[in-house]
Structures are given as C-alpha cells and as structure tokens.
C-alpha cells in the first residue's frame, strides 16, 4: 500500500502537543547568560555618543560593540552591506548598535533602558516613492539595490494600433510574518572549539555561511543546530543569521553560553516584513479581448539594506505577467532603499505583490473591453506549448479553462453574481450588507528561480542502521509545515518500508549535508526528490551486493542492513541535485525556464460589505489548485487554509503603522491578524496532474495560497460596491473614505 497521498499524522506532532518538543527558549546551559540588543533610536545619522547611565553595576555586564567583531562586520548574504552592529552610522530605526549580556535577565532589561545613544540625525526617507524620486540618496548612487528587465517581443510597436490601452496602479503594504515562536538563539563560542549555535531557523547553512565570515573561522569550526521551530513564513530565512551572530559575539567575549530571545514587541519592531510594493500596468488589447502587449513597472521597498531583496524582486518580476500568453511583454522592476528595517522573505516572496496587481488589473481590462472577468481570462490563458513572459515554453499539461470552470461551479459563482446584483439593488432604508463575488487565476513556480537550484547543488544523504531504520540527513527544516512527515512518506514509498522505520535527523551542520534553504516551496518537490534518490541508492546498494532480493519485506530489509553494516562498517548514500532535462535560463536577459514546474490555481472569494461599519468580510472561499500529486492531503489542505487565512490578513487587516520608519503598532493588540471568526470556511480542492520530476509526482505548494486571495477579495468587493480598490491592506477607514 503506497504511503503517497495518505494522511499520515505529523511525525513530531505528539511531542509538540505533549510539550516534549524543545524550542530554543526551553534549552539551558550551565553558567548561561542572557543577551539583549541595544538599538538605534533614530532612522538615520551618525552615532556621536554612547553612555552607560543609571544605577547599574555595569562592570558585571558583557558589552559588545562593532570593535569586538573578530571577522567581517557584515551579514554575508548577497551584497554584504548590512553590518552586524552599526559602527558609526545608522540607516534605520532599531538598527543594532550594541550588545549586552548578564546572568539576570530582569537586570539586563533595566540596563538596556539605561544605555543612552546619541545620534546626529540626517535626513531619511521612508517610502518607495521618495526613494525613487531620490529625495535623499541613502544607498549607493541611486537608492536602487537591484533592477531587472524582461523583454519579450516589442511592446513599443503595439501601442499605436491597439484597440484599447488600459493603465492601472496597485499598491501593497508591509506584512509581519507573526510566527508563533519569536526569533531566538543560544551560542557557545571560543577560539579553541569554535562557534556552536542552537536556534529557531529555516536555513541552518545560511547562518553557517554568515558566521564563518563574522568570526573569520574555517567552516568546520562553525556548527549550527536547528531547534524545534515554531513557524517561519520567511521570517526565519535570513534574520536568524543576525540574532545567531549577536548571541555568538556575546558568547565569544564573555566565554559563557549566551541565550538571546526576542519578545514579541522586539520581534515585530526589529525583524523583517513583507516588502511593500507599487505596480504599474499598461496593457494593449484587441477589441475581442486578446492581449497584445503588457508593460509592467514593479517596484518593491527593500528597507535599509539589500538582504534578499534581489531574489524577492526576481520572483515578483517573473510572476507579474501571470498565467497568460502575450506576444509582447516588458517588465521593468526595481528594489529600492528606504530608512526602515530591511524587508525580507515572506511566503510568496514578491509574487503575492505582483499577482495582486495583475489580477486586479485583469478585471479592469475586462471591464474596459466589455467582457466578463471570466471570458477575458479564458481568451488569454496559457496552454501547453505556449510561452510565458520569460519565453519559457510550458511543457506540462495545463488546463486553466477547466480549473476556472470547476472553481466557478464549486463556488456557485454565476448564481451568486446574478443573485447579489439583484439583492444589492433592493433597499429598505436601513444599512445593508452588500455582497459580491470575485476570483483570481494564477500560477506559482516552485523551487529556486532560474539557475538557482543548479548553483545550490543540494545534497541529501540516507543512512541505514543495524535495526533497519533509515535515517534521512538533510538541512531542510521542519518549521511546522510538515517536512518530517513528507520526507518519511517519500522514503517509505521508495523503500517499501513503514513510515515508522524512517527517521529524520535533526538539522545540524556538523552532521547533515547542505540540502539548501527551507524556502521557495522547494522542500517537498526539490529536496523530496533527493530524499527519494538517496534512499533508492541505499536499496540498490543492498540489492547490488546481493544481500537483498528485488522483492523484499521489512524483516529482509532489516537483515540485509545488519549484514551489510557488519561487513562494510556502514551503509550511507547521498544524492546531489540534477536539473530536469532541457531547462535553460539566461540570467543576463532574464529569459528562459524560470521554474521547473508551476502550480496552477483559481481562487474564488465571496465578500460582504457592511454599510454600517464599512467592514468587509470574506463569507466564503474556494481554493482550487493543481499541484501535481498531493503527498499528504491533510498537510496539503493545511498549507492552503493557513496560506489563505494569512492572505486574508494581508488583504483586509494587517496594517503596519509606520512612524518615522518604525513600526508603531508592534503588539498583537494593535497589529490585527484575523481570528477564526474573521475568516470564512476555506474550501480546498485539488486537481492532480503528477509532475514527472517531483517525488511521487508532487510540485511545491507552500507559497501558492498566499497569492490569490487578495485580488479575489478586492475583485469581489468591486462587484459588491461598484467601486474599484487598488491598495491593500484595505481597512474599513479607507473603504469609508472611498464610498462616502
């Protein structure tokens, strides 16, 4: 019986619900100190003075400044422009300047309040418009971290003869990841043994790479161990390199283990958020609704340092033209600097921003041409053999028409459209609830963009024990999404063994190979495939050495492992990433096969709008997607439900209130995420079309559900109210102003 497609319970679930799972804050070491960060009070300027005040026994404290850094003072990532500790100039509020450690964590907070930092302020800029306008040059020569140009055909030749040209501008705001467990790390560091860090993280090898530079130590002297991690959503992709480095610097100087755990207020005010964006569309269409030319200007606000902005921008750029065919496409995109804490990875990674713009714009174009949103899209959907904006030929079977038909049926779209139009027109002189339905059609590429996976060269190992247990060694992390369970199912399928005989080894850079970061919907599809080939290698080794017949049972496998290990000492195999055939990507021209595979989806939202309070509420939600083969239906549905809920937050609730570059509402009381009663039943449906190069036929799904809800909801709100909204988050206050 194949374990693929079965709802196995979460491998670590029992440990988590019984409180036995150990998160970083549950760990303690003898003599351990606590560490805190003293941060910049100003958005931009020169540090002129640091004083240690108050009635504090300062001589008991370990104090670390930029001068104490043994290696390079930057977080090694892409451009290496972000310092671990600002030495003399700060570029955003809450930028780390100084570190303190002490045994007593209460006294430590009192001490933190008594460090006074004086800054000679310089003019700062806080939004992408000011950055583009170069109101102040705050980064490089032009405030631009990165730009891309995607050019297919020639849009310039089209405008003059087009039947319609439709333009639009769309904006999205910052969003906080709000994982349950805040960022945290514990470090032990000394010149003799090197640096060991335990922490909550998505990508142990990112932290490893950063700490090698920070301490200027050989790779084997840095060891990173992922502890049980309470969610990430991208918020623990690049940030843990910073907090791990800080804890390690304090440990290095004090000679003692140091624990650093952010509280919610610090995590929200200081760590990364989703990049705010602005997208402009200019679209040429024929009178019968065929796309002729698409020109897109996509800008994201990267914050004060580059961090991952080029990669976020890349994914946003490539997804900005969606699942449509158009002979002429030009996408110009930029990531720009502002004096706010660096924005970073967040589920969807740029795609939710550009897809929001596109799917709102598609409704606008449809209206201009005089077609329904449905018919207009049908006339432009991409099919097998056609090319995307980057001229990637779609080689898999894709049937957006059928997906759309099914999603509209499942949601009763046509009946509701007609009924709501009638009901919304009726009036009894009281405040009403108006209703509407809308949808979005989109795709999401799984795995690293372009040649990313080839550069990563990910490796997974598998090792058998004498008891016939197969241990999977990978740096891919379980962060609540189900890595452990999915890897076990894949290995179990490939070996024909019970899932209980598969063990997932805790990611520890001293023991596991680098299977790449846990990001980009790549863990099941890309790393899972490596798990499959690594364990297949084990099986073949046993068969090849004649210890195991081709057809075998569990006890035969166990005997064979024991025998092999008795004879040869150990049984271990590794598998390295091989790209699927015929995948080509041109990094210069930004043309070619952007992703190995795409998941395809249609999301339909029904909303109500309350005339009394101006609040929009999502009443019903249908999420239909084609994701290859579903490996575990409960985990897959969980990903979709969670992603849609998070996307509803992004659309209608989550508003980062900025005050001079600092988040002013950095508490859960005032940064509003939806509760269960704020989200509708989320009805999840899958269409299965196995992907030849994914394990068991699977494609990635982790980020997909973040993409479609925002435009579907705003399309539905336009249907309900007759007014077009092009900015999110869309709060009742804004709805009121537009509707009064």
């Amino acid at each position, binding site marked *: 019986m194949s374990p693929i497609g079965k709802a196995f319970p979460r491998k670590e679930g029992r440990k988590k619900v019984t409180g036995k799972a150990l998160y970083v804050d549950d760990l303690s070491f003898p003599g351990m100190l606590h560490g805190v960060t003293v941060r910049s009070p100003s958005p931009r300027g020169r540090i002129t003075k640091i004083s240690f005040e108050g009635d504090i026994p300062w001589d008991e404290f370990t104090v670390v400044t930029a001068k104490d850094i043994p290696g390079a003072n930057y977080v090694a990532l892409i451009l290496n422009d972000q310092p671990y500790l600002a030495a003399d100039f700060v570029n955003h509020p809450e930028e780390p300047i100084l570190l303190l450690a002490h045994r007593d*964590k*209460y*006294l430590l*907070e*009192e001490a933190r*309040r008594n460090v006074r930092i004086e800054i000679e302020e310089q003019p700062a800029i806080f939004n992408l418009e000011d950055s583009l306008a170069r109101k102040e040059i705050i980064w490089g020569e032009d405030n631009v971290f990165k730009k891309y140009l995607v050019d297919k055909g020639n849009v310039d030749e089209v405008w003059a003869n087009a039947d319609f040209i439709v333009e639009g501008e769309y904006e999205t705001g910052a969003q906080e990841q709000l994982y349950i467990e805040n960022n945290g790390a514990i470090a032990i560091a000394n010149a003799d043994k090197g640096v060991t860090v335990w922490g909550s993280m998505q990508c142990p090898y990112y932290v490893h790479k950063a700490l090698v530079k920070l301490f200027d130590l050989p790779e084997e002297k840095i060891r990173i161990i992922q502890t049980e991690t309470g969610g990430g959503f991208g918020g623990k992709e690049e940030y843990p390199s910073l907090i791990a480095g800080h804890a390690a610097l304090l440990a290095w100087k004090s000679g003692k283990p140091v624990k650093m755990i952010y*509280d919610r*207020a610090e995590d929200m005010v200081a760590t990364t958020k989703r990049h705010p964006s602005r997208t402009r569309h200019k679209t040429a269409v024929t009178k019968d609704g065929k796309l002729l030319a698409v020109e897109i200007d996509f800008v994201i606000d990267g914050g004060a340092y580059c961090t991952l902005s080029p990669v976020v921008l890349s994914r946003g750029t490539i997804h900005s033209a969606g699942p449509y065919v158009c002979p002429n496409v030009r996408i110009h995109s930029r990531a720009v600097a502002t004096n706010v804490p660096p924005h970073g990875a967040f589920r969807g990674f740029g795609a939710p921003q550009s897809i929001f713009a596109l799917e709102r714009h598609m409704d606008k174009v449809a209206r201009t041409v005089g077609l329904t949103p449905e018919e207009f899209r049908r006339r432009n959907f991409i099919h097998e053999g056609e090319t995307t904006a980057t001229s990637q030929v779609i080689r898999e079977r894709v049937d957006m028409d059928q997906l759309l038909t099914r999603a509209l049926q499942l949601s009763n779209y046509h009946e509701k459209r007609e009924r709501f139009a009638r009901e919304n027109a009726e009036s009894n*002189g*009281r*405040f009403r609830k108006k209703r509407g339905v809308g949808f979005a059609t989109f795709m999401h590429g799984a795995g690293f963009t372009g040649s990313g996976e080839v550069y990563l060269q990910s490796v997974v190992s598998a090792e058998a024990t004498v008891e016939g247990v197969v241990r999977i060694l990978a740096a891919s992390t379980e962060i609540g999404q189900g890595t452990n369970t999915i890897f076990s199912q894949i290995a179990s399928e490939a070996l024909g063994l019970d899932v209980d005989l598969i063990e997932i080894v805790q990611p520890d850079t001293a023991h596991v190979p680098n299977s790449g970061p846990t990001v980009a919907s790549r863990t099941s599809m890309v790393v899972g495939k490596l798990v499959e080939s690594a364990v297949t290698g084990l099986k073949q080794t046993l068969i090849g050495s004649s210890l195991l017949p081709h057809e075998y049972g569990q006890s035969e496998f166990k005997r064979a492992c024991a025998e092999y290990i008795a004879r040869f000492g150990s049984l271990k195999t590794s598998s390295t990433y091989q790209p699927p055939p015929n995948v080509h990507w041109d990094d210069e021209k930004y043309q070619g096969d952007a992703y190995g595979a795409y998941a395809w989806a249609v999301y339909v939202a029904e909303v109500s709008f309350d*005339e*009394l*309070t*101006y*609040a929009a*509420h999502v009443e019903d939600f249908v999420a239909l997607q084609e994701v290859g083969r579903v490996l575990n239906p409960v985990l897959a549905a969980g990903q979709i439900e969670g992603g849609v809920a998070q996307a509803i937050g992004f659309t209608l*609730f989550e508003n980062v*209130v900025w005050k001079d570059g600092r988040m*002013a*509402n950095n*508490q859960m*009381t*005032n940064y*509003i995420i*939806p*509760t*269960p*009663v*704020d989200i509708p039943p989320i009805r999840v449906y899958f269409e299965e079309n196995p992907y030849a190069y994914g394990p068991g036929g699977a494609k990635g799904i982790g980020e997909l559900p973040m993409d479609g809800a925002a435009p579907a909801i705003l399309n539905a709100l336009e249907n309900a109210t007759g007014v077009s909204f092009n900015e999110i988050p869309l709060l*009742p*206050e804004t709805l*009121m*102003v537009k509707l*009064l």
Partner: protein
Amino acid sequence: MRAFIPNYQLTTPASLAEALTLLESEPGVWKPFAGGTDLMVLLEAGRLAHRNYINIWGLNELRGIEATDTHVTLGALTTYTEVQTNPILRREFPMLCQAASETGGLAIQNRGTLGGNIVNASPAADSPPALLAYDAEIELVSNRGSRWLPYQGFHTGYKQMHIDPDELLARIRLPRNTAGLTHYYRKVGTRKAQAISKVCFAAVGKTGQGKLMETRIVVGSVAPIVVRCVQTEAALRGQRPDEETIAAACASLVREISPIDDIRSTAKYRLQVAKNLLADFLATLRT
C-alpha cells in the same frame, strides 16, 4: 518580560478590612490588583509605573451577584463569565451580557473583572457603555465608610475619576427598570473578536404612540471618557424617529463627542460610524 521585577510588590490581605487598612495606612502607595488583565500587559511591556499592589482577587466580600425587587447588585470582582451566565442579567440587562461576551477571549472573560474595567478607565472599555445606559450606581468603600454614587459622572477626564487613594470600588448596582425597553449594543472593533473597540455604542429606548418617550445613548472610544449623550437624548424626547429626527440627532451627537486619530482608527471613521449606529438604533425604534 521587560519589567524589573524586584521593583514590584504584591501583597495578599486576608480580608476586606485588612485591605482597607493597608490602603489607609499608606495613602497612594498601594493600588488594587484584581484580575490583573490590564496590569499584567503593562508589566510585561515594562510600562507599569506604579509598583505596590494589593491582591484583592481572594476577597469574597467583593464577589457575587444579588438581586432584590428593585436592583441587581454585582461585586466589583464579578467576571465576564459570571455576567454572561447570570439568568437575571441575561433577561433584563442583555447589553451587559453582550459586552461581556465580546470582551477578550475565554481566558480574559474568566479573569477580567467589571471593577477593573471601570477603574482602569479606558475610553475604549466595553462594559461601561452598557452600565451607563442602564443607569448604574457604584459603591466605594474605605475605612471611613461606604458611599454610593451614580456611575454617570464618576469619570471626569482621561483616566481621571472620583475615587480616593484609600477607597476600593466594592459593588455596582443596576436598577431593574428595563421592562419594555429596546436594547441596542454594538461593539465595532478592529476585528470580530479579541479586539479593542474603535467605536462602542450602547443605547436603550422606549416609544409610545410612535414617539420617543425615553432614550439613553452612550458611546465609547470617541472621547477621553465614555460619553453619555445627554443633549442628544434631550433633543430626541417626544420626537418621532423619522429621517428628520435622525439627522438632527446625528448633528447633536457630533457636538457631544470628540474622537481622535490613533493607532487603531481615525477620528473621521469614529465620528461617521457613531452617527451610523445612532441612526440604526433610532431606525429600530421606528416600528
């Protein structure tokens, strides 16, 4: 936890008398700590200015809900859960039960108290609008004795109120005169649950021969204190709740409240929604 814990003291008296003696002996030094649901948030954030607290949670003298023919009396330590499960309150004071059911989540409802909600004096608190609309009275006790005063007028400005440093809020009393009233309560928060009010509206009204005999209208989150809109009530008396009356009432309401922009909403929104709620309330009295 950002607070420096050694700076704080919490003492647990054995009786109300002991608590009052402590309050009297060092005026202003001690403050009550009831459910702690407001205080603990400040402590965690390192923003709790006052340092010495008397734990009153165990004082049974401040608990219980009792009814006589004329009044229902609630101890200051009455929790939101107790409010919601009391049959008399559910029947005669539904807005208080609704406020309780929309306050925080279950944990807060089990621990948060009416007395704490009143003395914490947030203009965004959700029970005060209902209590004011029901003409509540409150009892303050000290070693000097006990005094009853109308709740209306107790708060005088932002976090300002008529309570002396040696006094505890002991009881809240509601006159049982709600028969025949229409009750209208609506909390407009930042989301459907676990939310702080952006506008909170509580009103009762009665009509006779198509005219408004009596209304009591209270709005929260629109001024430094929760506002009983007495001028608007006066303007409505004897009128028919028609479009013209509603427009006039809204105009009067605007003069009685003074909402502001803050982290949760805008003055403009609060004003408009308060008017909408008033209009909606009056419309319910039309038939």
